[in-house]
């Protein structure tokens, strides 16, 4: 769902191109907050019970549900670890990010 959406880059050539009042011209989806991450959540789909709790507690809207299973959108996940902590069957592991 969210993965398919992209936002355009906004460039102002001069101040004349700027709107007269502060208003939004694009979506914050352009801001890939995944770069903040130190640890990444990895979902073990075999043990997943499809409860949706990880989706509910994700502050970055980076867990999306497809066919009732959760998938992580690593473009935006900041690696807070709430999903791993709250998962009732502990099927989400936080793994060190590799450079």
């Amino acid at each position, binding site marked *: *769902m*969210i993965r398919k*959406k992209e*936002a355009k880059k*906004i460039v102002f050539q001069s101040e004349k191109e*700027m*709107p007269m009042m*502060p*208003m*939004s*011209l*694009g*979506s*914050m*989806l*352009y*801001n*890939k*907050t995944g770069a*903040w991450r130190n640890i990444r959540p990895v979902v073990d789909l075999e043990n997943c019970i499809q*409860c*949706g*709790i990880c*989706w*509910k*507690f*994700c*502050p*970055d*809207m*980076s867990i999306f*549900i497809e066919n*009732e299973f959760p998938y992580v*959108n690593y*473009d*935006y996940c*900041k*690696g*807070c*670890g*709430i999903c*791993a*902590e*709250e998962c009732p069957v502990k099927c989400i592991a*936080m793994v060190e990010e590799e450079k």
Partner: protein
Amino acid sequence: MAVRLKDLTKIEDKLVAGHGMCLGCGIPLIFKVILRATEDPIIAANATGCLEVCTTIYPRTAWNMNWIHSAFENAASTIAGVEAMYKSLKKKGQIPADKKIKFMAMGGDGGTYDIGLQALSGAVERGHNFVYVCYDNNVYANTGGQRSSATPLGASATTDPAGAKSAGKIQGRKDLTKIMAAHNIPYAAQASPARWLDLYNKAEKAFKADGPAFLNVMCICPTEWKYESSMGIRLAQMALDACVWPLYEVEKGKYKINFKPKEKKPVLEWLKPQGRFRHLFKEGNAWMLEAIQKDVDKEWDELLKMEAPASK
């Protein structure tokens, strides 16, 4: 029919990913649930604060709905004006009579408890039909952690730091939900991100209420409360178990407590994981722990008494 979590996952987000809030922040969790509680289009006014600053970094926005930025003090007046305009246009026939729009204002505890209180009180008194959501993280987190009137007793903040001569804030917190309930509004409630169904039901009731409604939601804040970001929801649950943040609603003057812990836990459990209360566990500050426990017990007992007549 009771709502299921699976149904909520199918609704499109009104606050999208890419916002710049801290990792483990409680604000998006709250609004994820609240914004799904109505099917009608929403117009929101946002007071300055964490939510406003992080979601609208010029020239972009993270909102998938109509959203107005207002100054720190007047989110409630802004949305009151929009609502009055809507009523007027409806009378003139420029908006179809069957078109329903929901109005919502949101602000942090600084913009609601302190700076925006008189605008909120005025808008509520005039009876505009809107929902005010306050996300209460007990501190001015956006500007670096200054104390607000929602900061609890004993907490250390940058303008009342704990040290050799001080044990944190010496005043208790203001009870805003009761202040709003005293305006005799149709609906006022206190909620927590740890109980999503309760939060959803309260948001639904607030949107359906005929007149102003007020929601005060506790918001976990890893940056200013200084705890491990993954522990956020656990901490919110601890606050409920220790009765630090009671869940209750006031519907037409009647108090109802929505969550009573089976066993009331000592307030110590809630204080211990948080860095802002670390100084309380040093030598010589034990009196403050007792004072906090006493304060919490007093408030909880008062609330139980207030509920009693309604249940009979």
